[in-house]
């Protein structure tokens, strides 16, 4: 139920983001989703890719500072109130969201929201109880 996310430390220098994407592209790795958190000095690029293990290896080789984090990918109806319903489930279960980002599925009426949550297992069971679809690695990489 968990999805592997790769986080990369990126200094605010021109060309750094391009270098990451070139390393991935050059190795045939496809980005499925991404978000960039930034401060005045640096940013953290968070990626969901189709081949996480290979991505880790090639980025490490290119001297990037990385970390691997487990996140969950949740299918949310692409309609008003869709996200609010999911957040209400988590909120009622007393679960905090550290950060999240979303993208829209190409071939359906759903959006996919990536959640980083401290207590992932509690989140999974709360969402399952409420019949929310959680995507696993293989499904996410096929989006």
């Amino acid at each position, binding site marked *: 139920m968990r999805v592997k996310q790769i986080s990369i*430390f*990126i*200094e605010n220098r021109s060309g750094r983001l391009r270098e990451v994407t070139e390393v991935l592209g050059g190795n045939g790795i496809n980005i499925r989703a991404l978000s960039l958190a930034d401060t005045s000095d*640096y940013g953290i690029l968070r990626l969901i890719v189709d081949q996480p293990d290979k991505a880790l290896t090639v980025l490490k080789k290119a*001297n990037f*500072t990385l*970390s691997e984090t487990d996140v969950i990918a949740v299918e949310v109806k692409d309609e008003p109130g869709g996200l609010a319903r999911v957040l209400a489930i988590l909120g009622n279960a007393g679960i905090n969201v550290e*950060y999240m980002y979303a993208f829209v599925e190409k071939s359906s009426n759903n959006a996919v929201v990536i959640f980083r949550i401290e207590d992932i297992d509690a989140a999974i069971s709360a969402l399952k109880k409420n019949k929310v679809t959680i995507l696993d690695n293989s499904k996410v990489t096929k989006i």
Partner: protein
Amino acid sequence: MIWNEKYESMPIDERKKLQLERLKYVLNYAYERIPFYKQSFDKNGIKPSDLKQLSDLSKFPMVTKIDLRDNYPFGLFAQPLENISRLHASSGTTGKPIVAGYTKNDIDTWAEVMARTLSCGDCTRKDIVQNAYGYGLFTGGLGIHYGAEKIGATVIPISGGNTKRQIMIMEDFGTSILTCTPSYALNIAEVAESMGVDIKSLNLKSGLFGAEPWTNEMRDNIEKRLHLSAIDIYGLTEVIGPGVSSECQVKDGLHVFDDHFYPEIIDPETLEPLPEGELGELVFTSLTKEAFPVIRYRTRDISRLFYNPCPCGRTHARMERISGRSDDMLIIRGVNVFPTQIESVLLAMEETEPHYHIHVHREGSLDTLEVWVEVGEQYFSDEIKQLEVLQKKIAHEIQSVIGISCRIKLVEPQTIERSEGKAKRVTDHRKL
């Protein structure tokens, strides 16, 4: 205004006699009382009695900050602690400070040279001295304080910081003499201007500024904005504190109070003495100190010495305004900072690598210190708040060692220059 005409305007030959007599005494005194000097003289095959004339001093070994650190805290004192009435300290090259001890007589000597310094700034018993140097282990605050009291002036021991209050007191108490670091003087000027204070109407007459390098351009700027006469004062904890030398109103070099502190200029590479007027490293020997005498202390400050008499009437040797350092010490907001201090903090912290680079900037009139640290895999978190906690922790640890705040910038691994020899750890962006 000359505080002690007898000694400050003494005929040069007469002073040389006095210096020789005192030098012989202090060499013996240090040799007999401080094991470090005995060993160091013996190792170099030289005895105090080998000093026949002043120039013989250059045959004696020198003492460095590292020697002082190795003998931390009291190893170079010539008197037992019961005879020490005060301790001060300044930064060492790593975590431990350099400690200076003073006997009752040393405190009197210090007050004497500070009274001379303040008199150079036209301070009399009618003046009101606002002393914005820091009080505490730092020698600046109490050094000025005792000198001003000796003159009989009125002292406001306000210490540094709280600039708006400084300005209020300046207006309300009628401060005539301001003492602080030159950058703080500029800061006071800026704040006073922004508060709309009519600086011209204040009672300010002169300012004694030191503890950090500054330029004549900065002097012009301060004088114009604060409407006072600004003089450069010099000193260091290892020698006594402020009061080693001071400009007079002629403002052409700093008079070294060389009946108490004997100056030499050496080539920092060959360590050979340099003739009058050559640029080199200042070396001082204390002639009258009891608790913590120093024989040929290498200051690392770059200057030159000249001996022609000054129109003010003083006959002391004069030193040129300090133009640099022969080591990597930085002076930031009046505080001495060594890159090795920062390195020792990073080495002691589990989360960091000892790869760093220091950037010093001057924003307005205040110096800022920024330390770039590489983010290692082991402590990289994908949550910004965790990285911010780390930044704060490093900044806090560094501040606890160097005594001033700094900003930590996290950079990618392998981006800080590695060097085979002496790595370049510092970029000073200030235009001094």
